[in-house]
């Protein structure tokens, strides 16, 4: 069985990659992708801990796996809405550069 710290290390790596992506990419699509990466890094950490606790016989550990399913479902919904918004923005501006999206500011 792969020890839990390995999973956590991978999860941290994914989170770092995701956050760097969010901070550096200007295309909204790539930002969006990076956010998904961060979300799944968190999912990975949660299921890894859930597996470790259930191996020790803690029943409530299953709730971690349930939480991941819920997060996946929400992520799917969020992707649908977020991509919809992105398409609408692209139709309006022929660009998805997040730095240009600052009209709401005074």
């Amino acid at each position: 069985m792969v020890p839990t710290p390995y999973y956590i290390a991978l999860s941290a790596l994914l989170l770092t990659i995701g956050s760097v992506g969010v901070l550096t990419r200007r295309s909204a699509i790539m930002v969006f992708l990076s956010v998904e990466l961060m979300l799944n890094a968190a999912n990975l950490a949660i299921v890894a801990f859930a597996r470790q606790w259930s191996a020790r016989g803690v029943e409530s550990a299953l709730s971690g796996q349930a939480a991941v399913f819920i997060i996946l479902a929400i992520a799917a919904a969020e992707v649908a809405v977020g991509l919809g918004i992105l398409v609408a923005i692209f139709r309006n501006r022929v660009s998805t550069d997040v730095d240009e999206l600052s009209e709401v500011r005074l």
Partner: protein
Amino acid sequence: MTHVVAWASLAPVLALAGSLINAFFGRNLKEPAPGIIASLAVAGGFVLAVLAFIGLHGSDAGVQVTFWRYLTAGSLHLDLGFMIDRLSVTMMLIITGVGLLIHIYSIGYMHGDDGNSRYFAELNLFVAAMLVLVMADSFPLMFIGWEGVGVCSYLLISFWYKDRANPDAGRKAFIVNRVGDVGFLLAMFLTFKEFGTLNIAAVNAAAPAMLYGSGVLTLIGLFYLLGATGKSAQLPLQVWLPDAMAGPTPVSALIHAATMVTAGVYLIARIGAIYAMAPGAAATVAWIGGLTAFVGAFAAFAQTDIKKILAYSTISQVGYMIAAVGAGAYWVGIFHVLTHAFFKALLFLTAGSVIHALGGEQDTRKMGGLGRHMKVTGNTALIATLAISGVPFLSGFFSKDAILSSTLNSSLLAGNGGDALYILLLVTAGMTAGYMFRWYYRVFAGESRVDKHAAEHLHESPPVMTWPLGILALGATFVGYVGLPEFAFPNYIQRWLEPATAKVDFNQLAASTDWLLIGLSVVVVAIGITAAWWVYHVRKGAPVAGLKESNLASASRGALGFDALYRILFVASGEGVSGGIATLDRDVVDRGLAGAGSAVGLLGRLATALQSGFARAYAFAMLLGVLALVVVAALTGVVR
């Protein structure tokens, strides 16, 4: 007969109804209709007053009409009720009788005015308030009428409100009256404290049992006097009356001559029982009246406005009445109210007729010789002038002589300068004859100084205006015969009023002395008239032309500088206070608020710096925040 008298309590209701009809529906009525409705309402009141007058001949006591109790607080019970006795019926006859003639005259005078229905609504409301004032059986109800009269005079003085000076004059009248009203209120408080009731008849009944000349009675008397000086334009609150001439002339006749200014006289006569027990207060009343009579007559000499001369003469004549009631001769005061109502209303209405004919001109320097063009106006004005001057066998003669002898003989004034007051009033009588004939000669006699343009339009007023003049002239001539000198002739009005007023002792002089006094006053009046005739008619004012710039003349023009004094004392200090408050408001409150506003704005502008509008900057801030949370959690061990 009792219920015939009680019906008189409907008189104010009638006038009020007339007022309401004109106020709400007057605008839809064609021109003479509002005037006719108003006149009918007052005529109804007059008929009721006459019936009550006849009905009261049978008994000395009045009739008390109580409608309902409208206030109970502790031991204080206030009934809404009217006291219809000989005194109040006399006043009702004057108010509705003279008032009716003035209403009829107004139909002609206010013809074609935009505010015709408003005018008659206010005039009727005034009559209603004045009737409430004289018929009230308790001080608070009297005060309601008192205030109503004040409000109506404000409304009517500022009737032509589009000219700024008129509402200013109205406000002045109202504010000066307020000062007097404070006196009335304080007097009511003290009355309730002393007597435990505010019913006038009960107070009058209880007063004789009080300590003669006690301090509190004197104080009550002085406070009521303050109220009376406000309403009756006596020193030191006389300043509003000359300005009140800003209203339409019939208003001046009704309010500022025949009725409203007599309210103070009526008040003191009504509560005579208090003054009869407080000689100090009574003497103060008499002296205020005497001094006012003198000051008014003095000020009348240098005026050039046709109505202002009459205004000062009103102040002076009311001073006579106040002197009489101060001396305790209550019937004499009311008698002069009666005669004065006729000749002063007549004077004002002839002045109105002149102003009407000249298209609004009020300056006597641009008049003269008008008697030749306006026969009825000129002749009736002459009768009124003779009457007010105190020429024998006209009404003013009898009432003025009664006042003079009452000040000389009153037991209330014995030791309080009754003799000096007599001399003051006697001199004033001569002055009255002088300034009134100056008025007559400058307006109606001599050569014409009328503008050419105005002279072409010169016309006698229509019959609706001249008829009231004629009737008033009859009254001004003959009404004095109800009060023939009581030592030699049957005196009707004294016997009529005495049961309704307080009893004060008067010295009985020998009949020969009385005749001598009358002769003396006739001589004084003759001197006054002759002097006026010589100075203003024969020499055309030449003997006094040199006086124009003198201190005497300017003192008379400025009415002894009361207005200037009050301007310094009250207006200037008021302006100082309000100026200070304005500065405070502008420099502290306004600036503080503006500063607070801009500080909030600045803060907001600072906060916008946080919102860069770059999504990645927000993301970075979130990352930093999460990192900070993680570090804190790791270091403090919150998460086990």
